[in-house]
């Protein structure tokens, strides 16, 4: 492998010290004296029609700037999913609507001088509802007599709204029924994964204002600044040209900020009143009225030969998109497309998904994006096949998993709402990941041993995973570089660092390519006026697409520099030029010139021009990162409490461009996955109201919840990625549910079919076994 100067080093995150010293870097760290505060009124009914709404008193309340309802706002039906265009999510949403589809749906909003005034004015809005029967359960929603949630004729792109079906997928390879018939064993099981929330510590927040030319500036906490611009333009029916979106530092996203939630409303108030407007979600609003993970029931059936080779794999996914269909189709696609190719030996594969509208909060994109739910079931059923054939979990996976040079028909058959793109694996270290992870956890010594200490029993389990690096031939990112006198470079790119460290990696890529230090790169992102386009941060696209764009821009700059040097040196073969340590040297003649001298010459002296370039990256490849997860748990048979003792994750993300940042992504995703496996879950009342929409009752992990965590980074080289890299942000959230489920089975021989594995469910499983 090539030696790098900056790639593969732990360059300190370039924004970290500013963040750690409390500089004003977030959306809400500015204020305008005449700023309006936006507050929302929400539906108390899970399903209802607004028969009458009277805002007269609210409008008259002193300090109120504007009251918004369906009567005086945009009537453009759209999707809030911040995806590429044309969007694969159905158009089923208005800024405000007459029909209420869940407890938490928007009835109205007030923009007022203070938040208190806005809250008081909301109380003065009189609403008369006609309450409709609601449906909270996916299976009930599919019944003939179920109330129809989207009965408006304007709905576009939903599969069959009359049957509450937001999306439907059916993909067949070979013939699974024949495959099962010809298998020696057939195993089938179903697991249910719940509603959960991303819980970024900074909730959704947007500030809008008019610039000196009357254009609308949207300063917002988003993962998708360019999609925000496009969708706000669509909803407000104004040209894209009238809008500027600025993404400052973002306080976490995890998918929930891939959604246009506050931006259109805020921008509308600013457009109508001319005043700056601010909307900041409370924690309760973040839980109830932003987005969640799709609750899913996943059924997997595997047929295998005696030697363990899979002959047929069938997956059926029932997915709950809640009241609106944002990411309905694509999350369900990914539940199959990011899991099934892992077991590419099976000649017969079938994937079916039904995505259902219910009168519950809106699901959306969440780190893992369906793969988390798919693996929750798949990786436990794989273990069940192993047990039936008396193979170990390691053996069955080693026999069946995808390897370098191989492909799976699923890559082509199942794309993101359309046909996919065939992928051949060019880097895949799964064998090594399994071997190293097993060694670290002590697999041979511990598996099947069921060490007991009173009522507490130890067990170990494992699972393997893949994800992707962006959506092939869909996701595009671009970057612009320009050179300054002191050999510093401005990097302006659309990539959206939401805390991951993408801006730092971008600086490292530039530094590596141009023979400078990362500190010499001034990174600016993302701003729709000043930076080129990028789809944004989702689908594990940051390193691969945004980073790839930065590399392409830097390669063009290299060429431009060499062009100048050719003339300066009177030499013509750039292969003789070495660009490092801030200068270009000719291997042939020994002549040398610093980058600073080149900049001065081109800016001021001779053949004057700006050395600058833009690179774009779109790829037919979406190289999957891979991971093997191993966990040792202790389960108390008396209390049902599962305690993870040690968690090992071995990860192949190609070249780790910055190992410390990679480690951060691995551990961060893993801990989120651990709490999703063990305690995070929405609970609803019978009327569909979320119970406990705060951090007291919906607990997310704290320092006390983490076991010993050992991340192992296995370096490979992915030829299609920047300096051999693949993306890594999502994959590690997928492991804890199946790995802990398998460890639980190893310890006490039971499976809990409903996630999270809370003590009550563990105890119930123990009782059922007896």
């Amino acid at each position: 492998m090539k030696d790098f100067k900056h790639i593969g080093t732990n360059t300190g995150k370039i924004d970290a010290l500013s963040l750690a010293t409390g500089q004003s870097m977030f959306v809400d760290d500015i204020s305008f004296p005449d700023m309006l505060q936006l507050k929302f009124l929400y539906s108390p009914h899970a399903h209802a029609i607004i028969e009458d709404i009277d805002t007269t008193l609210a409008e008259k309340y002193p300090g109120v700037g504007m009251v918004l309802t369906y009567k005086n706002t945009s009537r453009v039906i759209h999707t809030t999913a911040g995806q590429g265009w044309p969007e694969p999510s159905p158009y089923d949403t208005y800024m405000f609507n007459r029909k209420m589809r869940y407890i938490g749906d928007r009835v109205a909003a007030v923009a007022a001088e203070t938040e208190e005034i806005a809250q008081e004015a909301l109380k003065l809005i009189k609403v008369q509802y006609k309450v409709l029967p609601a449906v909270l359960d996916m299976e009930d929603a599919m019944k003939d007599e179920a109330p129809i949630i989207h009965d408006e004729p304007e709905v576009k792109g939903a599969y069959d709204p009359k049957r509450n079906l937001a999306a439907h997928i059916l993909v067949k390879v070979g013939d699974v029924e024949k495959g099962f018939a010809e298998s020696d064993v057939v195993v089938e099981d179903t697991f249910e994964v719940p509603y959960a929330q991303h819980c970024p510590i900074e909730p959704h927040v947007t500030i809008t204002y008019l610039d000196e030319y009357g254009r609308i500036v949207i300063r917002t906490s988003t993962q998708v600044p360019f999609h925000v611009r496009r969708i706000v333009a669509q909803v407000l029916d104004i040209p894209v040209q009238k809008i500027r979106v600025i993404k400052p530092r973002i306080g976490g996203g995890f998918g929930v900020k891939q959604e246009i939630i506050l931006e259109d409303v805020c921008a509308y108030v600013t457009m109508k009143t001319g005043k700056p407007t601010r909307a900041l979600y409370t924690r309760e609003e973040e839980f109830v009225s932003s987005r969640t993970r799709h609750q899913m029931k996943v059924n997997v059936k595997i047929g295998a030969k005696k030697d363990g080779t899979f002959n047929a794999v069938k997956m059926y996914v029932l997915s709950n998109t809640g009241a609106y269909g944002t990411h309905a189709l694509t999350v369900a696609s990914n539940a199959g497309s990011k899991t099934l190719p892992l077991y590419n030996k099976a000649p017969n594969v079938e994937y079916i998904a039904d995505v259902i509208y219910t009168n519950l909060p809106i699901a959306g994109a969440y780190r893992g994006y369906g793969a988390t739910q798919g693996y929750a079931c798949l990786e436990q059923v794989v273990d069940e096949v192993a047990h039936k054939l008396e193979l170990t979990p390691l053996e069955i996976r080693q026999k069946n998993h995808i390897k370098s040079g191989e492909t799976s028909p699923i890559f082509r058959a199942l794309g993101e709402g359309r046909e996919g793109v065939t992928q051949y694996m060019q880097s895949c270290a799964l064998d090594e990941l399994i071997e190293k992870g097993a060694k670290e956890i002590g697999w041979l010594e511990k598996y099947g041993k069921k060490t007991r200490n009173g009522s507490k029993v130890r067990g170990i389990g494992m699972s393997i995973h893949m994800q992707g690096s962006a959506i092939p031939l869909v996701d595009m990112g671009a970057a612009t570089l320009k050179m300054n006198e002191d050999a510093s470079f401005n990097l302006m790119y659309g990539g959206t660092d939401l805390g991951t460290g993408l801006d730092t990696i971008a600086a490292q890529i530039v530094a590596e390519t141009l023979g400078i230090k990362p500190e010499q790169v001034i990174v600016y992102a993302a701003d729709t006026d000043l930076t080129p386009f990028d789809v944004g941060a989702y689908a594990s696209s940051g390193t691969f697409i945004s980073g790839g764009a930065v590399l392409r821009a830097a390669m063009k700059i290299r060429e431009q520099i060499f062009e100048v040097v050719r003339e300066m040196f009177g030499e013509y073969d750039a292969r003789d030029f070495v660009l490092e340590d801030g200068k270009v040297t000719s291997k042939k003649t020994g002549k040398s010139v610093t980058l600073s001298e080149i900049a001065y010459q081109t800016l001021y002296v001779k053949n004057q021009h700006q050395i600058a370039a833009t690179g774009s990256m779109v790829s037919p490849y979406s190289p999957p990162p891979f991971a093997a997860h191993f966990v040792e748990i202790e389960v108390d048979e008396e209390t049902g409490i599962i305690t993870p003792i040690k968690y090992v994750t071995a990860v192949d993300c190609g070249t780790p461009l910055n190992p410390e940042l990679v480690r951060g992504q691995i551990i961060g995703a893993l801990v989120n996955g651990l709490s999703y496996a063990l305690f995070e879950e929405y609970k609803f009342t019978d009327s569909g109201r979320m119970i406990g929409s705060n951090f007291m009752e919906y607990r997310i992990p704290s320092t006390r919840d983490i076991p010993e965590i050992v991340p192992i980074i296995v370096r490979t080289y992915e030829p299609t990625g920047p300096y051999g890299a693949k993306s890594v942000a999502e994959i590690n959230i997928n492991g804890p549910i199946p790995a802990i489920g398998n460890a639980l089975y190893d310890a006490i021989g039971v499976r809990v079919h409903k996630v999270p594995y809370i003590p009550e469910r563990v105890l119930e499983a123990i009782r059922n076994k007896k």
Partner: protein
Amino acid sequence: MKVCYSINGKKKEFEINAGEVLLDVLRRNGYFEVKGNCYMGTCGACTVLIDGLPYTSCTMLAAKVDGSEITTIKGIGTLQNPHPLQKAFVEKGAVQCGFCTPGTILVAYALLKNNPDPTDDDIKKMLDGNLCRCTGYVQQIEAVKLAAKMLKKGDE
């Protein structure tokens, strides 16, 4: 009503409403380094030191701490002259989105004042009220230990 604080060593006087919490008073007056909005004391992002001890400013009545010394993250170090904790958080990769970082560092600061040589367990117990969704905490704990080492070497 009026309250008077010493914030990061500077005397300040503010006009407040009787029921206001400290977080709102601070942010309204431009102390944007104080984050958080759960208003239940559950996430810890709004932590400030009041007379040297960490409190969640979202649940602290502004009037109650009239006359106190308040320290925000800007009071323990600057971009030009960061505190070892701030340096260690950068070095160990303990800052991802950075939204929880000021609160977490202030709690760690209070810990190291009383316990210059904390074990992993001490750190976990002390930081358990500061939620972070990005890091998974491992690097934060490493950073606090590194800072403890730096402080012992006299790097302050």
